[in-house]
């Protein structure tokens, strides 16, 4: 059961083939069995998760209309405030802090009855790209425990790859969702800036930070995005517009007539041959499926990394100055 996708789990729950308590317990058992080796989790909220699961099952038994992911478990990156649950950002500085409030992402997850299993490991304050820089020790890649799971959200990506959770939340400033997804064979999206509220997300670099959905399939990522995205008056950069219908798009898979830009300036050195080949392959697949591939130019792209190295340290010095 734990090897199913989140949408398959949701279908089984809706059909009454299993309960959220059973599904949650199966994931808790998996965590007990493998997390000593993987170390994806910093905190497992056994009691809270089972209570949340029991509440969803009760709602379902009463015939209440439930959200598409209701009862499906999720792993939460430890950079997100969750009321009453330890939130450390992978740092000893915040050890023992139990936030008195929920971040908007967590509030949205709870409102949609997504069961939160616990908090996942990360590079300290999300600064890093290997999850080796957590004050609580590194996370290991489930495919090969001698390798890194990417970072900073290596706990979330490893939890997905190790079947400890079918859904996870990540945050991405300079790759912290996308790169861990790439090196664990999972799916992660950095949504459009302002698409997901940053309220209750411990800030690293405010003009770059963005929370986003992680899962093992594109459809699951889309389902999770529609749960967490949307306008939030508590975040001044939140987009006040309807959330794009990514679930419908993921289900149809129709790319006919879609124009896809490939940035010319990213055509440089530094790619492993295998990575390059897979990228070209995906372009071929998209073209065969009817998409139009066009070359676009972003002439300032070569300055992006240098700009990042100014923006990110400046903003994090300011955001974290009070620690």
């Amino acid at each position, binding site marked *: 059961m734990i090897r199913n996708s989140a949408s398959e789990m949701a279908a089984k729950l809706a059909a009454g083939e299993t309960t959220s308590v059973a599904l949650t317990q199966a994931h808790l058992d998996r965590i007990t069995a493998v997390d000593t080796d993987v170390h994806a989790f910093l905190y497992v909220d056994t009691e809270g998760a089972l209570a949340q699961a029991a509440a969803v099952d009760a709602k379902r038994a009463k015939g209440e209309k439930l959200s598409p992911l209701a009862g499906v478990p999720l792993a939460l990156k430890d950079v997100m405030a969750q009321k009453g649950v330890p939130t450390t950002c992978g740092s000893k500085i915040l050890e023992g802090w139990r*936030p*008195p409030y929920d971040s908007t992402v967590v509030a949205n997850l709870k409102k949609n009855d997504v069961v939160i299993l616990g908090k996942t490991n990360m590079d300290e304050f999300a600064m890093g790209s290997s999850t080796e820089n957590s004050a609580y020790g590194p996370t290991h890649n489930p495919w090969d425990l001698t390798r890194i799971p990417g970072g900073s959200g290596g706990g979330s990506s490893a939890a997905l790859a190790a079947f400890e959770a079918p859904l996870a939340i990540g945050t991405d400033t300079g790759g912290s969702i996308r790169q861990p997804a790439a090196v664990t064979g999972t799916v992660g999206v950095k949504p459009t800036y*302002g698409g997901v509220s940053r309220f209750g997300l411990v800030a690293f670099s405010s003009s770059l930070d963005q929370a986003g959905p992680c899962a093992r399939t594109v459809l699951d990522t889309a389902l999770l995005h529609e749960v967490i995205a949307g306008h939030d*008056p508590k975040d001044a*950069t939140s*987009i006040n517009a309807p959330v794009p219908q990514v679930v419908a798009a993921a289900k149809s898979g129709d790319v006919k007539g879609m124009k896809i830009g490939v940035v010319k300036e990213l055509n440089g050195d530094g790619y492993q041959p295998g990575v390059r080949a897979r990228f070209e392959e995906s372009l071929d697949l998209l073209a065969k499926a009817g998409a139009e591939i066009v070359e676009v130019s972003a002439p*300032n792209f070569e*300055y992006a*990394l*240098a700009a990042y190295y100014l923006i990110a340290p400046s903003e994090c010095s300011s955001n974290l100055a009070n620690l």
Partner: protein
Amino acid sequence: MSSLSRDDVAKLAGLARIEMSEEELVNLSNEFTVILDAVARVQEVAGAGVEPTSHPLPLRNVFRADVVVPSLTPEEALSGAPAQEEQRFRVPQILGEE
């Protein structure tokens, strides 16, 4: 190309009241040099003719209506305080008496 020497870093660390080992001073001076290189790179393009941008959204400053909404109780707000007094955070004294 600008750079920051080990001694420059030691001086900064002293001003910031941060104790640093010899190894940390040397590592940081290398890291500062990378950041200074980044400044130089960005200066190549960030001239007067370039419009400043922070994000691509058509957003100006955002205000909310001035209405009272539920917020944390004093107990909740102070739940993480190492020390408290009269519903306030208690912090070590940093100025002299009086």
